[in-house]
């Protein structure tokens, strides 16, 4: 059962899988949620068993294995009054580790994060902005809480995220619909959900939404080999383990 703060990436990491493997194992969830990065608490996700993968490697070398799916990504476009906050310095602190950089011409900042990262603080000193970010807490756009969070991020909602369709949310929806040429219903209807996703979840320079086709599955165990350097001591240890296994057989 999905808990608040979970997404496919964090759940895959916690279970030693790639997010593609986990996502492809859940076709029913794919039908329900087209964005694997935004799940709703209570969603049911099936965790497949891990499969061992064997890789033949020479015994007199050290091999480094790189785990797929790590780190997770955080990508954010910063705008002010619909114009990108381009070339602005930013710093992000997550679990005591600091990241920093400068937004690009579209206001985009991008950084790798631990898949289990839950909270962080983003500071944009040039604009005197400071945000406490909750990673993985954005619900799907067709849930009221997800719409509220997106309306808040886009500057239409000042109130708290209640998950309830209250007057403040209706007013924010009306504002959003009016601002984007939609029929002003004050309801979370399909055109509004689609526009919210377009404005919040998708790169503005690429208006087509992300494909819902499942990503290619990665076969076998989650660790993929990549030869880099030699570590004779480690190879010796593994050789001893294998020899011991053979004796037991």
């Amino acid at each position: 059962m999905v808990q608040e703060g979970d997404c496919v990436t964090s759940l895959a990491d916690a279970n030693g899988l790639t997010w593609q493997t986990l996502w492809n194992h859940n076709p029913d969830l794919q039908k329900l949620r087209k964005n694997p990065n935004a799940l709703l608490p209570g969603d049911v996700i099936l965790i497949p068993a891990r499969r061992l993968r064997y890789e033949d490697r020479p015994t007199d070398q050290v091999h480094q294995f790189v785990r797929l799916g790590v780190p997770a990504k955080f990508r954010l476009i910063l705008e002010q009054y619909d114009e990108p906050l381009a070339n602005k310095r930013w710093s992000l602190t997550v679990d005591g580790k600091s990241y920093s950089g400068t937004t690009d011409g579209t206001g985009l900042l991008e950084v790798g994060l631990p898949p289990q990262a839950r909270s962080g603080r983003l500071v944009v000193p040039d604009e005197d902005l400071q945000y406490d970010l909750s990673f993985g807490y954005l619900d799907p756009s067709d849930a009221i809480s997800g719409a509220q969070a997106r309306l808040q991020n886009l500057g239409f909602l000042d109130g708290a995220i209640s998950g309830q369709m209250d007057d403040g949310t209706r007013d924010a929806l009306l504002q959003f619909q009016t601002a984007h040429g939609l029929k002003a219903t004050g309801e979370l209807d399909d055109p509004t959900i689609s526009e919210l996703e377009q404005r919040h979840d998708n790169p503005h320079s690429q208006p087509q939404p992300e494909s819902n086709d499942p990503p290619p599955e990665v076969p076998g165990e989650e660790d993929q080999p990549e030869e880099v350097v030699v570590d004779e001591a480690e190879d010796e240890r593994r050789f001893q383990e294998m020899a011991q296994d053979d004796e037991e057989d």
Partner: protein
Amino acid sequence: MADDAAQRLQRRVMRLAQESAFINTINVADRVKIHFVWFPGPQDPSMSLVDPILGALDAAGNERTVEYLWQRTGLPDVRRTMNTGTIVLTLPPGGKGTLTVFDTSWELTRAANGVTLDGKTTMNGVQQRLDRLGYHLRTPGQVSPGISGAENQATEAAVIAFQADYRPGPVGGPSTRLFIRGEWNSNPELPGWLDVNLSATNGFVTQGALDAVAKP
């Protein structure tokens, strides 16, 4: 900004898979709402000008809408339709833009940070509000809005006109003109942004334009 929890803003965002093309977006903005109202207004000032018009369907059974054009320096023109009588725009403090609707262009100027209306009980505050509601204090040929803080004949005339207008009566009569009323959101991200100045470059909508909307 002080390192104070009350000053920080909470935001829910997505943690993204490595190959994901999704993003998160934060737009630091409050929204200026422009209401179109009957002038002289009905007793209920929240009543929209276009509600009674656009609530009806046209001859083809389609919902009636009004097209508008919003032009802000440095940004692409926005051409949209409204069906409620309210337009939502982004306009930073000190910013200017031109809104064209009903064949009338309105130059909108937003007050700079920290600029607010004076209190309702001061003469200055009363004059500022009258001016924004279309009861201008300037005399013919006068350039300045005529907001002096002094009690004078122009102010008295404007107050009488306001009181006369806001009495029960039908809307859309022969003397009805179109005016706009500005609202603003106070946004914790943007402390002190409290005011919107609205001024029209060419005043009133022609009766012909109104008729075109009311009786297509």
